[in-house]
């Protein structure tokens, strides 16, 4: 797998590994003053044990988005897509449907909308960026309309007290993550499609000369992305005690994009790796945990997190700046 990566992506992976270890040390350092050393170690252990459950939705969504970004496209609507998944879940739940039907509906709705974005961009011949920017608002509206129509007596949110509905997101998240991540890494190492997606993003003209069907490749990336985002949506929804489509997954897209870019994926497409994305998601999660332990003021967290994400994306763009300008002048 590593042999298929470009040198900057390999360097980024090494840097991220070091960064994640560093953040764990910082968290430990924040825990020590208020606790004994064994107590701090125990609390750090709790943070680590909770990590798979907490990062599973974001990690799965990030893998899906990585595939889409590789082709040179992007999906800005993933937060709203999650809200639609939640709305479909709420509709099923309120009508007494069994968990498998509720989660199946959520997966199909979320995955279908992402794949639909790709199809719409191809059909209308407009950038995926615009289609998904429109989706950011439209899907949120769709989610609200769906719960209004499909959930009897809906008053802003729906509480799901039954434990059975929380099992996938709470108890199985780690296993889901293991299988899905394993599948993605296997696909990246041995599959043909990920290479073609990278080729598409790197040079569409060269791909055209090679006889590749670019629209079909882009659609396949959106289908792959839709499947992973749908899975992420299922885990996200089942991890929530209440379904509130108006606020659900607000700003989710930015943290996922930041994780993907941080993982070494070029925002313009054509470069990156799933492994880097996984480490990028982990880095952002640990950074957030550090903020929780380091800042008592919850109002400061969004600003610091926003600054961190901007810093990361800005840093990445500076690294690619010369290359991008040279490409532009060619």
């Amino acid at each position, binding site marked *: 797998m590593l042999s298929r990566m470009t040198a900057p992506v390999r360097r980024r992976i090494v840097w991220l590994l070091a960064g994640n270890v560093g953040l764990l040390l910082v968290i430990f350092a924040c825990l020590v003053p208020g606790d004994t050393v064994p107590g701090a170690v125990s609390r750090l252990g709790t943070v680590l044990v909770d990590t798979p459950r907490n990062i599973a939705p974001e990690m799965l969504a990030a893998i899906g988005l990585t595939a889409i970004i590789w082709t040179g496209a992007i999906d800005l609507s993933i937060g709203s897509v999650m809200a639609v998944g939640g709305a479909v879940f709420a509709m099923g739940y309120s009508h007494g449907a069994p968990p498998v039907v509720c989660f199946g509906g959520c997966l199909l709705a979320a995955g279908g909308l992402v794949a639909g974005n790709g199809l719409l961009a191809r059909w209308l011949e407009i950038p995926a960026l615009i289609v998904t920017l429109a989706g950011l608002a439209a899907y949120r509206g769709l989610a609200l309309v769906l719960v209004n*129509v499909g959930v009897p007596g809906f008053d802003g949110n729906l509480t799901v007290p039954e434990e059975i509905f929380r099992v996938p997101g709470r108890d199985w998240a780690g296993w889901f993550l293991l299988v899905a991540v394993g599948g993605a890494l296997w696909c990246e190492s041995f599959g043909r499609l990920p290479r073609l997606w990278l080729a598409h993003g790197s040079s569409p003209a060269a791909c055209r000369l090679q006889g590749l069907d670019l629209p079909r490749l882009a659609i396949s990336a959106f289908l792959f992305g839709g499947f992973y985002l749908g899975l992420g949506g299922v885990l996200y929804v089942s991890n929530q005690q209440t379904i509130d489509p108006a606020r659900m997954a607000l700003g989710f897209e*930015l943290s996922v994009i930041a994780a993907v870019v941080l993982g070494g994926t070029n925002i313009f497409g054509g470069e990156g790796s799933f492994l880097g994305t996984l480490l990028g998601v982990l880095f952002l999660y640990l950074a957030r945990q550090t903020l929780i332990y380091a800042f008592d003021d919850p109002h*400061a967290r969004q600003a610091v997190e926003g600054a961190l994400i901007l810093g990361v994306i800005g840093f990445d763009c500076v690294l690619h700046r010369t290359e991008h300008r040279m490409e532009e002048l060619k």
Partner: protein
Amino acid sequence: MRVVALLVLLVLELAVFASVSGADVSTPSGVLDYLELKFLDLIPGLAPVLVLSVGMTLVLVTAGIDLSVGSMLALVAAVMSLFDGGTSFWFTAVPLGLVVGVGLGLFNGALVARLDVPPIVATLGTMIFFRGLCQLVMRDAERAPFFDVPGYEWLGGFSGAMVTVGLVAGAGGWFWSRSRWRRELLLVGGNRVAARYAGVPVDRRLMETYAVMGVLAWVAATCFTARNGAVNASTATGLELKVIVAVVLGGTRVEGGRGSLIGSVLGALLVAVLDDGLREAKGWSDEHLPFEISHFRYLLLGLLLVVGVWLNTRIGRRDDG
């Protein structure tokens, strides 16, 4: 052609919502009364969108986008609200608001021009960052010093809003139709490489454009606070999409290189009438629809954006080919 189409759409929209709202429009005087009431109510609330749509046109012309305008407006208003009402507000809070607006615009410009961050990603990031700063400034409070400032409330009325919008649109239009700056912005948006070869200082022009957006965010914040009188951490959430939809409907291409200020102003009117009409139609919708019509607004905005971009792309291709 586009302007005529927008005007026809505007008239159609007004006719549909007049009938749904139950207004008496059976006689010419009834129509005039309806329009007078409508616009007296609509224009002051619409002023921030109109002002920002002028700036967004410039940004889109350079093949950029600014998703942070709502957060910028909120942050500028939040900073201004830290000052006590009174005459001194004009000499302290208002100039400081301008400085903050220009600073935020330049920050966006630096990300886009100096660091080469794609505009959509850069401003999506600053949208969250500025909103975070706004929360830091406001916390959970709502501040309302604006109505204590002598003469400030006038800016939020019909005449104040008309003067502000007229000045911004007039100055923008005059500058747009005569300056070399406009040609250079169109070139930057149309073909950045060609612009560099032609000696246009691309990075500087981009910085200037985003700085103008910051200034207009300050103007919009002034109009907004003069109208509403209070500000909190979630002020102007979702405003960016309305502004973008208005500009795109007005005929400005998101790929850059083509834009119309008058189109943007008409687009903003179209979006505002739609927004207001859906609010007025609540009584009708409660009787006839199984969902709240206000939720339908997001769907319509998304749909309008896609349709607007699609139309602009088709028209652009026809003109180019």
